[in-house]
């Protein structure tokens, strides 16, 4: 399916989506509260069947005070791929978990929690993945500072 057809199909699924510019593949922005329903439709709809979640990560837009969650999806059956973006406020970072749809999301969401402090609703086992449980702060946030880190001398 090429990008226009895909976008049309997505629009029928969820009218509230908008195209996110500046991406190298079709990228759509979904309102956070619609994310869960939209994602499960993406996986289950026969014409779409996004069965593999390649990557899930977050971007810290500190200037705009928001996190952008990125889901990179692809369909092994149809061969098309899609980027789903969700904006959540930086001071109350809560998003629905998609780990019941793609099982790998359980780990990827744990990593995002670990690095950005995004909390996932209905996640089966939300805890730090790469850092110790008692680590303070979320290192991939742009404003993360600790005494240990060394800045590169200019």
């Amino acid at each position: 399916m090429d990008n226009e057809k895909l976008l049309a199909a997505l629009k029928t699924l969820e009218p509230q989506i908008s195209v996110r510019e500046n991406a190298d593949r079709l990228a759509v922005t979904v309102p956070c509260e619609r994310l869960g329903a939209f994602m499960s439709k993406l996986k289950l709809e026969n014409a779409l069947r996004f069965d593999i979640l390649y990557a899930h990560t977050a971007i810290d837009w500190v200037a705009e005070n928001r996190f952008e969650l990125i889901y990179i999806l692809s369909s092994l059956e149809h061969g098309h791929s899609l980027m789903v973006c969700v904006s959540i406020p930086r001071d109350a970072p809560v998003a629905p978990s998609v780990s019941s749809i793609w099982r790998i999301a359980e780990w990827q969401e744990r990593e995002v929690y670990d690095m950005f402090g995004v909390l996932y609703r209905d996640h089966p086992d939300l805890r730090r993945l790469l850092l110790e449980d008692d680590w303070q702060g979320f290192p991939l946030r742009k404003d993360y500072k600790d005494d240990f880190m060394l800045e590169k001398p200019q």
Partner: protein
Amino acid sequence: MGLITEKLPLYLDPVPGSSWFLGKLDEVINWSRANSLWPLTFGTSCCAIEVMMAAGASRHDVARFGAEVARPSPRQADLLVVAGTIVKRMAPRLRTLYEQMAEPRYVIATGSCVISGGPFIYHSYSTLRGLDGVVPVDVYVPGCPPRPEAYFYGILTLQKLIKEGETVRRPGERRKPVLAALPAGMTVDQIQEEMRSLLVTEKNSGDRRNG
């Protein structure tokens, strides 16, 4: 065995002529320790491939130096080869491994990461910049990763240190760490001094490549 290494010198010291005997004993013991360095099966990243695996494989064959009996349990190992980056989370575990080893125990640190942090010095919130704060290091082997030959040089350096250094009277005493790639009798400080002077002359003489 504490009997020979600790008690024996105490009993023998008053006896005249015992120092010759103890000296010979030293030599034999140090010879055996130097020639039987069993490493712990431990590697964290890239260096493990070169230092633990390729060095033990057919081409390089660390067995020639008697150091191929990799023990999976720290209790039976003599040599802790820290091959690869050590991060904050691993450091306490590494210390535990070191504590679990039986004396005499030696540490070789291989690779830039455990010497200084290597490519992960700046902007890393978890990579340790050097191993010296965690365990005492006997020999450093620089490289990213070091070649197996460099590791052999490290082992030979350690063997030399053991043969020269450790005595029955002072078992397991630590020396200042040594950089394996250094010529004999040279210290890290001297090298740094030399580097500084080189930098100065480079500035003064303009482009060294042309002149």
